[in-house]
């Protein structure tokens, strides 16, 4: 039971909004010490894992090109383009993006989107422009909500789309694990069972996105006289 102390540190540390990096370090030491390791052994285990997990940070190599495109006006162009579509709303735009992201992820093209590649340079500015088109200038709070919803939609579409692709990591993990337990499942059977959930995600989140539009529409007439 003592091993769970580290989990408690993580939960309390994140909830109390301490710096997450420090919380992780403390949690690692608490867990290791509770499991009977010496401080140096914990440090070594953490260092070894850090070195082995460097691939996680490789994604940052994409930032230079994203930055250059911003410098050259990509976000502004994305805004202008969306501003020319009269029927667009935040919800409708994000539903289209969600469908696109789910279908491409289901075909195994998970790296086609992402927060650095698509959400920051394209989708979030487009969503903001769509919101401004309907409701005029956005307050900081509204802008924050539109941006957060753009990022959330990317995640939800990815998570409930990628498992339809047979060769994705999670499907291979399920096949491998069940195989160890003496149960044989074909990847295709698993991916077929990811389809109902994918459809449900589109319906549930799509409904939330349309509701998001309606709330924004209710707010904007109240704001109009003040402008």
């Amino acid at each position, binding site marked *: 039971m003592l091993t769970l102390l580290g989990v408690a540190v993580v939960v309390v540390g994140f909830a109390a909004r301490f710096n997450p990096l420090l919380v992780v370090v403390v949690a690692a030491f608490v867990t290791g010490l*509770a499991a009977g390791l010496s401080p140096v052994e914990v440090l*070594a285990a953490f260092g070894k894992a*850090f070195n082995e997990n460097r691939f*996680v940070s490789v994604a940052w190599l994409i930032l230079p090109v994203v930055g250059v495109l911003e410098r*050259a*006006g990509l976000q502004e162009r994305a805004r202008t383009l969306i501003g020319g579509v009269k029927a667009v709303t935040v919800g409708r735009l994000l539903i289209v993006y969600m469908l696109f992201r789910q279908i491409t992820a289901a075909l195994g093209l998970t790296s086609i989107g992402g927060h650095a590649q698509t959400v920051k340079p394209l989708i979030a500015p487009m969503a903001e422009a769509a919101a401004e088109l309907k409701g005029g200038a956005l307050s900081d709070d509204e802008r924050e909500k539109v941006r957060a919803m753009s990022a959330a939609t990317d*995640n939800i579409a990815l998570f409930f789309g990628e498992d339809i692709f047979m060769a994705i990591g999670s499907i291979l993990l399920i096949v491998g694990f069940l195989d160890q337990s003496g149960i044989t499942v074909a990847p295709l059977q698993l991916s077929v069972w990811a389809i109902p959930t994918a459809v449900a995600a589109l319906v549930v989140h799509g409904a939330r996105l349309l509701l998001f539009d309606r709330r924004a529409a209710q707010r904007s007439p109240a704001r109009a006289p003040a402008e």
Partner: protein
Amino acid sequence: MITLSFVYVLAGMLFATFAVLSVRDTANPKRWTTGLFWALFALSFLVGDYLGDVGNGVLVLAMALIAGVGGLGIGRVATTTPDERRAAAAHWRNLLFLPAVMIPIVTVAGTFAFAGLTVVGMVIFEPLTIGGAPIVANPKQATLIALPFAAIIAGVLAVVLLRQPVASPVQEGRRLMDVIGWAALLPQMLASLGAVFALAGVGKVVGDLATQWVPADSLIATVAVYCVGMALFTMIMGNAFAAFPVLTAGIGVPLLMHHFGGDPAIVGAIGMLAGFCGTLMTPLAANFNIVPAALLELKDRNAVVLMQVPTALMMLAINTTLMYARISLSEQAQNTLLCTACSR
């Protein structure tokens, strides 16, 4: 043959450049600690394999302390003003999208080229080779190796096509990195914490706890404990992959599959998806939840998680219902079959 070390050298050089630029940036009030942080990150990528486990431990501890106590400042990069960007956007128009779409196109094309493509057991094409040896040694790393290629090709295209200064990629990269700040290190730190958790056997303890909670005679309760347990455990570990083996070994295989006769494909697939609902609700899945908040410069670092919670809860309910319905239907079908058999 290209391995991950090639990618690590690239990353090391980029972070080393960030370090030098940060130290030289007198507009950054914390330029020395900022520079030191990126220098340590560069060191990790360039010579991490030679530092030894304790050496790497000291390195990551130093990085976490610098970033954890607010040692990362924001530098000043000579970027364009909003007016200049509007003018540039009006000038380049849709040409701006070309380098942007090159990133996913090259990443996807590179992945297929390095790993080959097999659809439903049919080989569409083999991995590319040079002199008989595959270009990429480990096909599992194909995307990781294709991504930097895509970044470089798109970056060169952007600089040439859109007439940007040659130094602008590293400068703009540093600008975004400064905005992200400490969150840049969090995903790798959490992955390392997962390794310490595994070493200490945290997963087993949680799995045993969850198993104790199961009233083994009720299908609906067992399904609920398994699915909600997957979500909760994923929230704690920040990763559904860590939760899946533990709970499936404790509840999924012995109870849902063997005792209740549930189809392993249904239990496995929907169990994992229930875990994904947890991923949407935890700040510990930093890549998906905290990093975008930093990238999009949100004031509340939990804004993305909070936005996802309603969808995640509804999806968890749907996944649980779906699994229960499927298993109980097949159970009923079996019972009917048995009864028809006995009445005859």
